[in-house]
């Protein structure tokens, strides 16, 4: 970095947990409802109501803690974080402060360049979301929708251990992949299910004390996180080199102008006057929850990716693409279960033809009309030579259109590849007899004519000749 500066970045990501009901009430968390129709007495802070924690949200937090190798507290404490804002009806947010449910742990990240690194976590704690403010729709007023108020969040906090905008974006992607993989978050960035705040400071070299940091709020796209941090690093270096001080503050990223701007002075932790919430006794994990979650923990993306390379012999690229989402990896494994030993072929089709069809239909792996077993049935006909790769694509399209399984389509369309030598030789001889000039040209050394002759036989067999066998037999027929 220019002038010996080192950037120091820590991320706080808000992971919206995929529960049906809220963190402390039985109101629905479904997205997109009419304003305030999913905010009950607890969510709007009616006096006399009391919060009761959602057991499923607790289970999801435990699952995350185990997945990142963190310490999961048997006893954690809910605290009040006090601040005043219209979309926070209680005047405090129920969060966790001194004794969060998850402490420590690491997230394994792979950078754009393929380099793997671990990002250490400080903690992950349970808390409730605030409502939404609508600033533009009402003359002279701000509208408040409390449907989101009380939605369970897991706030995942890293150590200030990242040193570039690209690494920060790569971490955000890895965390996003992990929480979706674990089935605790739907990962929908547009709906705000996964949001990140970035704390950014710069210092003169890796040994200098940490500089004053600015917090960039609520950036909900991987690309904008990277751009916002890049801009902020440059801004801070510019300020310091001009002899000005960095102010601890919250800054908003302006997506259209690619810059950050000051939003408000940042409160310090003691301004929030955290204290244990007297409405909520300590959160004690139910008996057996930790063991059950440990046993149910799925193989994680990094482990699976490594296994695909080492045990299945797939390329690094295929292994990465297959483990981008658990649905893709599970689909691949389901195909492979029906087609042992054909990992490369299965990977090609799961990532190629199947992915393209799913994509065009707006579906995800695991959905769509062609099941993994049906796809395996099709690939088996490639392996045994019945279908060429090209014909297999036609059969796949027919299967997708609902014309039955691979064998049914092959039978109905008479698509079986001709691998029978007698039939192939008959077709070859007919072509050679009809094209004596080309045969002579080949014998005289014109190799290009061979491809033309193959094409003629293919045409005569309507593309059904087994290409490998056709090549062998044609060459034998033409040899003097």
């Amino acid at each position, binding site marked *: 970095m220019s002038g010996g500066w080192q950037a120091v970045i820590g991320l706080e990501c808000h992971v919206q947990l995929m529960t*049906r009901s809220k963190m402390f009430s039985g109101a629905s968390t479904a997205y997109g409802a009419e304003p305030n129709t999913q905010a009950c007495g607890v969510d709007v802070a*009616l006096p006399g109501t009391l919060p009761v924690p*959602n057991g499923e949200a607790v289970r999801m937090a435990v699952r995350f803690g185990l997945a990142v190798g963190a310490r999961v507290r048997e*006893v954690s404490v809910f605290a009040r974080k006090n601040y005043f804002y219209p979309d926070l009806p209680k005047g405090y947010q129920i969060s966790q402060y001194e004794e969060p449910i998850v402490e420590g742990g690491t997230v394994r990240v792979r950078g754009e360049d393929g380099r793997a690194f671990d990002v250490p976590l400080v903690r992950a704690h349970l808390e409730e979301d605030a409502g939404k403010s609508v600033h533009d729709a009402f003359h002279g007023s*701000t509208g*408040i929708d409390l449907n989101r108020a009380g939605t369970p969040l897991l706030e995942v906090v890293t150590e200030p251990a990242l040193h570039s905008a690209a690494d920060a974006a790569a971490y955000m992607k890895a965390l996003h992949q992990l929480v979706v993989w674990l089935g605790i978050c739907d990962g929908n960035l547009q709906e705000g299910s996964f949001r990140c705040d970035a704390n950014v400071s710069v210092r003169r070299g890796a040994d200098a004390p940490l500089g004053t940091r600015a917090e960039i709020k609520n950036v909900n796209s991987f690309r904008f996180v990277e751009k916002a941090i890049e801009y902020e690093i440059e801004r801070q270096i510019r300020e310091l080199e001009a002899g000005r001080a960095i102010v601890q503050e919250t800054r908003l990223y302006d997506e259209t102008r690619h810059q950050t701007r000051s939003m408000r002075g940042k409160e310090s932790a003691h301004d929030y006057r955290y204290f244990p919430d007297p409405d909520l006794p300590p959160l004690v994990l139910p008996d057996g929850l930790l063991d059950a979650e440990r046993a149910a923990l799925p193989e994680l993306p990094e482990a699976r990716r490594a296994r695909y390379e080492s045990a299945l012999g797939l390329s690094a690229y295929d292994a990465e693409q297959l483990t981008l989402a658990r649905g893709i990896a599970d689909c691949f494994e389901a195909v492979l279960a029906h087609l042992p030993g054909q990992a490369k072929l299965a990977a090609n089709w799961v990532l190629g033809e199947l992915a393209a069809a799913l994509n065009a239909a707006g579906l995800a792996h695991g959905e769509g009309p062609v099941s993994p077993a049906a796809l395996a049935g099709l690939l088996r006909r490639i392996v045994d030579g019945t279908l060429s790769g090209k014909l297999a694509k036609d059969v796949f399209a027919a299967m997708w259109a609902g014309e039955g399984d691979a064998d049914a389509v092959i039978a109905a369309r008479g698509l079986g590849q001709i691998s029978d030598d007698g039939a192939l030789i008959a077709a070859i001889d007919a072509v050679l007899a009809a094209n004596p000039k080309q045969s002579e040209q080949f014998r005289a050394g014109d190799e290009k004519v061979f491809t033309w002759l193959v094409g003629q036989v293919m045409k005569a067999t309507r593309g059904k000749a087994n290409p490998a066998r056709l090549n062998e037999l044609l060459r034998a027929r033409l040899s003097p």
Partner: protein
Amino acid sequence: MSLDPAAIDHLARLARLALDPADRARLGADLGRTVAMMDALQQIDVDGVEPLAQPHPLPAGLRPDAVTETDASEALLALSGASHGGYYLVPRVIE
């Protein structure tokens, strides 16, 4: 002892209160007395006393993840000072 004006301003900002100068002086004196009482409490020797955040030792009961609440927006919005189109209305908030 009165709380100094800078501290009062900071607290007023956290509480989103607009104070006129007379209130500022009065609140400074009031809060000064409150802080003095806290100082007195802090003189007490609490060595060996466990912090008590909860009056009873029961753990929190957990709720199954089920939607049990139905739309009560009409009744709840009726309790507010102002509402429109299903939204609670508050004085315009400017970032």
